[in-house]
């Protein structure tokens, strides 16, 4: 059983990351719709992102926010749907968050560098 303090922290982190993600997702949706209008090509994607500090900062914040948000949400779903609770679940979700941050950071680096 997670302590009350930990539950409040997770709740606050989920809402704070959600507020950041709402803005990031809105920008992402507009970018997606704009980007697919002539088909996706590597040249077009990289021309937009390569060397751009603005996009690097945006996607960096996006990745960090989702690395906080997704594991907390998944943790709730796993606990409620399959009854997985306790330390094992917490460690698994922490690992998932860290992996998302690492893989996401690598993806950002791939299109910016």
């Amino acid at each position: 059983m997670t302590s009350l303090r930990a539950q409040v922290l997770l709740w606050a982190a989920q809402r704070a990351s959600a507020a950041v993600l709402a803005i990031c997702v809105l920008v992402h949706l507009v970018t997606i719709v704009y980007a697919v209008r002539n088909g996706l090509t590597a040249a077009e994607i990289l021309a937009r992102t390569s060397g751009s500090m603005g996009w690097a900062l945006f996607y960096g914040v996006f990745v960090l926010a989702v690395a906080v948000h997704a594991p907390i949400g998944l943790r709730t779903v796993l606990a409620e749907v399959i009854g997985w609770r306790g330390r094992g679940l917490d460690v698994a979700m922490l690992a998932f968050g860290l992996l998302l941050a690492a893989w996401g950071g690598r993806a950002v680096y791939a299109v910016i560098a």
Partner: protein
Amino acid sequence: MKNDFRARNHAAYWAFVVHRVSGVALALFLPLHFWALAQALQGEARFDSFLRWTEQPLVKAGELALVFFLAAHMAGGVRLLIIELLPWRDWQKTLLTAATAFSVAAGLAFLLNLI
């Protein structure tokens, strides 16, 4: 009260189902999305060959579903933030309709730009 289907068959329950299903789908898709973008590390040609693979109709259908899920999860999430964090007002009852309209509009905008 028996918690049967009739008790659950209302708009707010379906909003909960959509939020949960879209959230899990997006969480599972993210590692794949990050892997795809990392193809750029192996050069523009490798990245391009992956992007050509995504032009298959079935992959595009999956992308459409993901765009809809992304819009729905965002709009549904904003609805939850408003309900949880702002004082209750009657207009908040229309948030479900607004979130649905936003999600469908995002999906249509993606589809219309694809074709």
